[in-house]
């Protein structure tokens, strides 16, 4: 793995190394406790009755037979949850409408997708709960359904919500539809832009809904006490957000709900929302006993958020010299059964990597009878990038320009404009392109039926609210705590930043994730924000500790604090004039904590801004079997600007992992529905995520253009890597067999049909 390092001033001792993670041993010995691994004495098991219909009015639910079954302790329906006003609150992209959210947790008037929860039963054993579920009698009025986004947008489409008026259209439509929202980001004069182009290409694309595919199904355990205090063990990407949603949906005060962060078995965005938690809490309150819920894999596919499928049209105009002069995009996204697809991100990210004077980017958020979409790694960006980066490939070919060089010519840098307004404030994109141009394999000749494709991707990395605490133990060792779930090594990166700041060995720092009662608020582990925002909180807390350590040392030396400096883990006199003092280690100062003011520890909170976006540029070599349409990945190289790698291996691991998810998205993953609107591949056998034997070693190139807003230059690394692969592979297939694939997945039947169509 090669590394480009650009103007890194500080010399790092531990930051940028790859030590063993603090939570490693429990995770290789089976001792780490994930969501399903908790149990309590007297615990009940809950099972969920789900709708067999894609769209149906619920006429009646009769639970009498189920309740009569020995061992059944309680049953809840959607109506057992408090009602919420119909109102969109919060940031536009994730505007929450609790009237919708409570209905997504459990259906009320209508079942809006196959797998929609209708009732939940708590019983003394899982088998009894399952038996009871089969005894619940539901009368449905089956309604016509719509699955595809284009069908859902038709004027005569069956309506999921009879009163949904499209937002973002002036004047507001009078007729209801399945179109929840229209949005647009525009700049310049699009018509004049295209008029000035030498080459214009317009193409339409479709992508399938794909699931995050985390290996751990959603699971939780709730214990609700007679005193109204509730404890919840849940595997999520953010236990503070689980607490907020669950409290609101169940109708309790946040202070009465304590959420323990179980280890999380993968999330990729899909565990930033709640599904089973509110049901478990309500059932526990109803029965007075602890209640455990474990989803099965089929439940996960049918009832938790995949990311949107889409229909898109993209038009781009360029000059002969490769300059992009105009770009237009129309992005129609499946939101699932409730509004809230990532279409806004898609419209913003679509053309973000390029300097384009004239842009019009329009998005539609459309409901249909599918599970509600949830965030998935760089939500929205990979979808629009598939269209944009494919069209750019066609244009590069038309003007006879190397596709990387064409991207480099138009690459944004600090000061470049964006379609949504403010100027870009960071470099990094051009550096990722250059890293591939310099790659020894990029110009390597290819064999028969082989092709090479490139693509790039953009993602807004996140900042936001985080809290961290740092305490110096009596023996001078250090314990740090944050409220950010560790999805892939963040305990290690937090410990590395703390060790670097304090000037102590990594091994002397214990790094933990604390429950909601033991540390301040942390937003979700998502948006590539943790190493950035929570990292800033950790460093700020360490700096407070250092300030205090200097004070303690000054007391021990009977001097003024200004005469004490902290360096390499020791308090030292600022210069010899202060006195001839032996440097004081953490251990020495900790030993005197009692007489110098008591325990040494601080918490720091931040609402971190100044985050820098992530750019990734990738090339892939494929071989296509012209007789079967099978696509084999021969080589995959991904360069990403990470700002600064804190834990080098886990940083590279994010890039490799994102690329492989992108390979699955490109080639095989898709939600397949039958004519009745039922999902026909709700399992890992037919929902085909890549297996080890499908892949070569993926090469990650860490490009490091530090972000000055972070003490170590971090930009965030989790998401930008999944943006380019679909287009890169489509471009490689075209290069191999001369066929342009415009629909995902590019499965063997589709590729073969394209080849045979000639």
């Amino acid at each position, binding site marked *: 793995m090669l590394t480009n390092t650009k103007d890194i001033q500080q010399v790092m001792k531990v930051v940028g190394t790859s030590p063993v993670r603090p939570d490693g041993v429990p995770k290789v010995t089976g001792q780490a406790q994930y969501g399903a691994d908790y149990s309590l004495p007297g615990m009940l098991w809950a099972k969920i009755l789900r709708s067999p219909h894609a769209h149906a009015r619920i006429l009646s639910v009769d639970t009498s037979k189920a309740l009569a079954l020995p061992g059944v302790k309680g049953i809840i329906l959607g109506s057992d949850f408090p009602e919420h006003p119909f109102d969109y609150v919060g940031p536009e992209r994730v505007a929450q409408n609790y009237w919708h959210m409570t209905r997504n947790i459990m259906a009320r008037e209508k079942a809006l997708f196959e797998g929609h929860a209708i009732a939940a039963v708590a019983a003394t054993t899982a088998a009894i709960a399952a*038996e009871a579920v089969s005894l619940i009698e539901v009368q449905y009025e089956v309604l016509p359904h719509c699955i595809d986004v284009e069908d859902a947008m038709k004027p005569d489409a069956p309506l999921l919500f009879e009163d949904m008026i499209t937002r973002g259209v002036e004047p507001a439509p009078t007729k209801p539809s399945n179109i929840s929202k229209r949005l647009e980001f525009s700049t310049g004069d699009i018509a004049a832009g295209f008029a000035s182009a030498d080459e214009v290409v317009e193409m339409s694309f479709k992508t399938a809904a794909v699931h995050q595919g985390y290996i751990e199904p959603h699971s939780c355990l709730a214990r609700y006490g007679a005193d109204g205090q509730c404890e919840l063990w849940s595997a999520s990407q953010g236990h503070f957000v689980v607490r907020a949603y669950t409290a609101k949906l169940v109708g309790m005060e946040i202070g009465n709900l304590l959420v323990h962060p179980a280890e999380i078995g993968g999330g990729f965005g899909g565990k930033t929302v709640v599904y089973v938690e509110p049901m478990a809490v309500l059932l526990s309150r109803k029965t007075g006993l602890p209640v455990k819920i474990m989803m099965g894999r089929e439940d996960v596919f049918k009832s938790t958020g995949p990311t949107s499928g889409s229909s898109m049209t993209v038009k781009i105009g360029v000059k002969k010299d490769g300059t992009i002069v105009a770009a237009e995009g129309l992005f129609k996204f499946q939101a699932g059964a409730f509004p809230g697809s990532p279409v806004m991100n898609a419209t913003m990210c679509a053309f973000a990597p390029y300097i384009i004077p004239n842009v019009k980017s329009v998005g539609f958020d459309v409901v249909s009878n599918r599970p509600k979409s949830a965030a998935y790694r760089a939500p929205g960006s990979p979808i629009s990038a598939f269209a944009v980066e494919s069209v750019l490939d066609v244009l590069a070919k038309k003007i006879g320009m190397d596709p990387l060089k064409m991207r480099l010519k138009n690459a944004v840098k600090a000061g470049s404009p964006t379609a949504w307004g403010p100027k870009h404030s960071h470099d990094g994109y051009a550096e990722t392109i250059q890293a591939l141009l310099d790659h020894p394999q990029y110009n390597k000749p290819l064999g028969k039926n082989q092709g090479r494709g490139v693509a790039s991707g953009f993602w807004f990395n996140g900042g936001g609210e985080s809290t961290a605490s740092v305490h110096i133990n009596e023996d001078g060792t250090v314990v740090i705590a944050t409220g950010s779930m560790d999805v892939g090594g963040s305990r290690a990166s937090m410990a590395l930043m703390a060790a670097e700041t304090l000037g102590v060995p990594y091994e002397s720092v214990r790094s933990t994730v604390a429950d909601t009662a033991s540390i301040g608020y942390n937003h979700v582990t998502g948006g590539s924000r943790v190493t950035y925002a929570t990292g800033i909180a950790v460093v700020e807390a360490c700096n407070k500790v250092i300030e205090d350590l200097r004070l303690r040392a000054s007391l021990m030396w009977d001097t003024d604090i200004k005469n004490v400096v902290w360096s390499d883990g020791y308090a030292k006199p600022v210069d010899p004039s202060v006195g001839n003092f032996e440097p004081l280690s953490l251990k020495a100062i900790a030993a005197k904590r009692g007489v110098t003011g008591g325990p040494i520890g601080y918490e720091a909170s931040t609402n971190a801004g100044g985050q820098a976006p992530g750019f990734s540029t990738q090339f892939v070599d494929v071989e296509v079997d012209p*007789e*079967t349409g099978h696509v084999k990945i021969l080589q995959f190289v991904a360069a990403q600007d990470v700002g600064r790698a804190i834990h080098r291996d886990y940083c590279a691991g994010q890039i490799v992992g994102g690329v492989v998810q992108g390979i699955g998205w490109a080639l095989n993953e898709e939600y*397949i529905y039958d004519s009745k609107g039922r999902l026909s591949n709700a399992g890992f056998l*037919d929902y*085909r995520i890549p297996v080890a*034997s499908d892949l070569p070693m993926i090469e990650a190139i860490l490009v490091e253009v530090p972000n000055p807003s972070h003490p170590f230059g971090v930009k965030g690394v989790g998401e930008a890597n999944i943006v380019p692969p679909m287009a890169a592979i489509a471009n490689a297939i075209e290069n191999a067999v001369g066929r342009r694939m415009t629909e995902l997945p590019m499965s*063997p039947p589709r590729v073969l049909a394209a080849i*045979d169509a000639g």
Partner: protein
Amino acid sequence: MMEMRFETPKTAEAASALIAATAGLSKIFSGGTDLMVHMRSGNIKPELVLDIKSIAEMNVIAVENGGYRVGAAVNCMQLLENTAFAAMWPGVIDGANLVGSIQVRGRATLGGNLCNASPGADTVPAMIAAGAIASIVGPNGRREVPVEQIPAGPGKTSLAKGELIVSFFLPERAPHSGDAYLRFTPRTEMDIAVVGVGLSLTLDDNGVCTHARVSLGAVADRALLVPEAAAALIGTTVDAVALANLAAAASAAARPIDDKRGTKAFRIKVAGVLARRAAEKALARAKGNN
């Protein structure tokens, strides 16, 4: 709650008697790789589950009359580890080696793969091509049936109530014989055949094909024996023309459906492609076998 009985009979006759004596649904449990999934989902609620892995004759892999006797409860890994069998029937090994994953192959059995009657079962076309004979025990004693006569549609077999397959006999190989099984799946492993082709052939001393059997999987409601495809090879040196005719015959015999795993058109074309490739593989093996 419904009672489920679990029994581990020691003889095939005892197993047969238990089934015959059970009014409700009884299921034979060998590898369990399909039955466990169906029981978990609630699709199947058997009254009796019979673990037949303790029946000695269902676990043998033994030479018999120059051929092989393979117990119906032999799992794929046991078969793969038997180098002598693998040398004689590499095509059957091709199939066994493609079932599920290592974990699944450690449980899944030849009898289970056949009696589960999935049109895409990976060991079945190879067994049919090999001319394997199933030995069946039932209330009326024992009978022998060619493997191709067992599947009767998705999830259905021609076995009568109380009947179970005890073992398979694979006949002795003539010189210059070779077999092969190829399947198409989107993934390299952990997948279900979209198309499968089992093919066995024998050459005379001049390299002319004297005997061939071709079987297609996943292109109909059951694995098919396709004599027209075999006929395209017999009497030829398995040259380019013969291979083209074979491919055409295989495609012509395919009568697939569109489903989540593949389209009709895809399966018809790929059936021909894989038949040709399987023939080339079997031919190479035949020429290597003197």
